[in-house]
C-alpha cells in the first residue's frame, strides 16, 4: 500500500494503524498530532485507525518557535 507521509510517498504492508506507523518512524504518540486527509485524529484513535491506500498523512510536532520563519507559509503575503 502506498501512502503519503509528510509529503513523501511510502510503501507499507497492510494493515497499518497510525500507532504502528508512528512506532516505525520512532515517534512518541504523546508528542505528535496526526492529520489524515485533512482530518485531525484524536490520540485515542491512533491504535485502531487503519490507514488506507493513497492516504495523505501529516505528522506534526512542536518545534522551537517564537517568531515565524519568513517564507515558510504557502499563503504568505508581501506588501511592497
Amino acid at each position, binding site marked *: 500500500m502506498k501512502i503519503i*507521509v*509528510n*509529503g*513523501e510517498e511510502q510503501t507499507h504492508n497492510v494493515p497499518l494503524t497510525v500507532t504502528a506507523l508512528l512506532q516505525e*518512524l*520512532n*515517534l*512518541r504518540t504523546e*508528542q*505528535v*498530532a*496526526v*492529520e489524515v486527509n485533512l482530518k*485531525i*485524529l*484524536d*490520540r485515542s484513535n491512533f491504535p485502531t485507525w487503519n490507514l488506507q491506500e493513497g492516504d495523505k498523512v*501529516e*505528522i*506534526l*510536532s*512542536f*518545534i*522551537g*518557535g*517564537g*517568531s*515565524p*520563519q*519568513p*517564507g*515558510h*507559509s504557502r*499563503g*504568505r*503575503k*508581501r*506588501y511592497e
Partner: protein
Amino acid sequence: MSNYPLHDPLIIAGREFRSRLWVGTGKYKNFEETRLAIEASGADVVTVAVRRVNITDKNSENLLDYIDPKKYTILPNTAGCYTVEDAVRYSRLARAAGVSDLVKLEVIGDERTLFPDTAGLLEAAKILIAEGFIVLPYTNDDPIVAQKLMDIGCPAVMPLAAPIGSGLGIRNPYNLKIIMETVKVPIIVDAGVGTASDAALAMEYGADAVLMNTAIAGAKDPIMMATAMRYAVDAGRLAFKAGRIPRKLYATASSPIEGML
C-alpha cells in the same frame, strides 16, 4: 536574588503564572542552549511552533525532551500563518499535539514586517473561542483592535512593541499606555524588545508580562541575556507597583537646608 521578590502571580483564564517573562524557543543553537536560557529566564510559559516532524532522520530529538511540559506551560503559536484558515488549522493541530486549549494566535499580514492582519486575527479568534480555545492574540499596538479582542473573549491581549525580531524596543509607548488603561484583561507586550531596558520600560508602563524570543536567543550570550531579562522584568514590575515620582523641570533638594553654616 532568590526566585521572585514578591508573590505577584499573573492570572489568565484562571491559570496562575509565577513569572511575568514569557519566552520563545526559536533561533537557539541547539536544544541544550534553549533549555539553559529558559531556565535562566525563570519563565514558566514558553512558546513553540507546530511543524511537520522530520521523518527522514529517525533519531532526531524532540523539543519536548528538553522542555518538560510538566514543568512549563507550553504555548503553541500559529507563527507563519497568513490566512484565517491556516491559523485555525494550526491551532487545532496544536491542540491535538499538546495537552491544553491555549494558543498564541498569529495571523500575519505581511512577510517583510510580520505585522498582524488584525481583521483576520479577529475572525480566527472568534472561530477558535467558539471551539473552546483559550486565545492569546498577537496584535498590533492598536487600542481599538485590542478592545475588540477583549470583547470577543480573549483572556489576554498581546500587542507588539515593534516588529518581530527587530529589537527596536517600544516604538509607540502612548498607544501601549492607552491599551493598558482601557483593556481590562492582562496585556502581554510581545515582540520587538531589544535589550533589558526595553523589557523594564514595558513593565513600568504597566504591562502585565513581556514575551520575547530573539532578544535572548540572538544575544551573544543568550543565557546571560535571559538572566538580564528576568531582572529587568522584575525591576520594571516592582517600579510600576512602587509608583514612580513625577517628572519635574527643576531640582528639588533632597538634603535639608537647616543646619547649614
